[in-house]
């Protein structure tokens, strides 16, 4: 029986290519990924503009961490920069969230003021009606 090794060789080559591709992928860095996630989350906040300086600091630290990672600097450098980026992003998120709470409080206070004014106008109208009725008797 004649053997046909070609498919087997092709499969082996494909598997080797896949392994080689996997081996060349950079290993994952959890701290860097957490920092990226935190910065993206802060940037996505609807009131991120209220925390612009904090957000920019976080983005700069993240860029520095990415650079350290890409340059193959000692891992401690990447981790420290990623830590800074993550904390600064969390600070940005806290500042933006504070602005959101302040808006909510201001809206509630405005609505309460409008209600009180409305109530006061109604009372004034009732007094005016009563006075008109007395005058008409």
């Amino acid at each position, binding site marked *: 029986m004649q053997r046909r090794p070609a498919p087997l060789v092709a499969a082996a080559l494909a598997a080797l290519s896949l392994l080689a591709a996997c081996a060349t992928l950079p290993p994952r860095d959890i701290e860097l990924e957490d920092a990226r996630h935190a910065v993206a989350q802060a940037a996505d906040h609807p009131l991120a503009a209220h925390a612009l300086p*904090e957000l920019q600091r976080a983005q700069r630290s993240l860029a520095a961490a990415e650079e350290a990672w890409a340059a193959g600097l000692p891992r*401690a450098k990447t981790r*420290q920069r990623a*830590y*800074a980026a993550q*904390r*600064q992003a*969390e*600070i940005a998120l*806290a*500042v933006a*969230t*504070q602005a959101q*709470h*302040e808006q*909510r*409080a*201001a809206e*509630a*206070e405005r*609505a*309460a003021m409008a*209600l*009180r004014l409305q*109530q006061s106008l109604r009372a004034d109208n009732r007094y005016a009606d009563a006075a008109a009725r007395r005058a008409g008797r």
Partner: protein
Amino acid sequence: MRMSIPRALPRLALAAALGLLAAGCAGTVDAGPALAAGAASVEAAQAAGPEGIANRQLGAARAKLERAELLQRGGNGVDALRLAEQADLDAQLARATAGTERSQRSADAAQAALDALRAQLAPRPADAPAR
């Protein structure tokens, strides 16, 4: 032009001394300024009156600062610097979180006051006009 070994010795010695000095400087890290910055941030966060999560974040910052001070005293400037910088960031976050928590309490109180006012002004069955 080639220099004879005895003539080159002083230059070599100078180069070696400078090299040793540079290596010594590179190995010595002064975490003092970072420790001072961390302590100032911890104090500022404490002044913000942290509660809940902010208080826990401040606790973590304090613990790191204490470890950094110990490391600095033990001559491990590199780790002291790393921890002092982290403590500084943790304390800044504690301060920001304290502000968020305070603003949330204010917003909740304003909303509760509005709800109470609405309930107070809502027409009651007794107020309904008689037909």
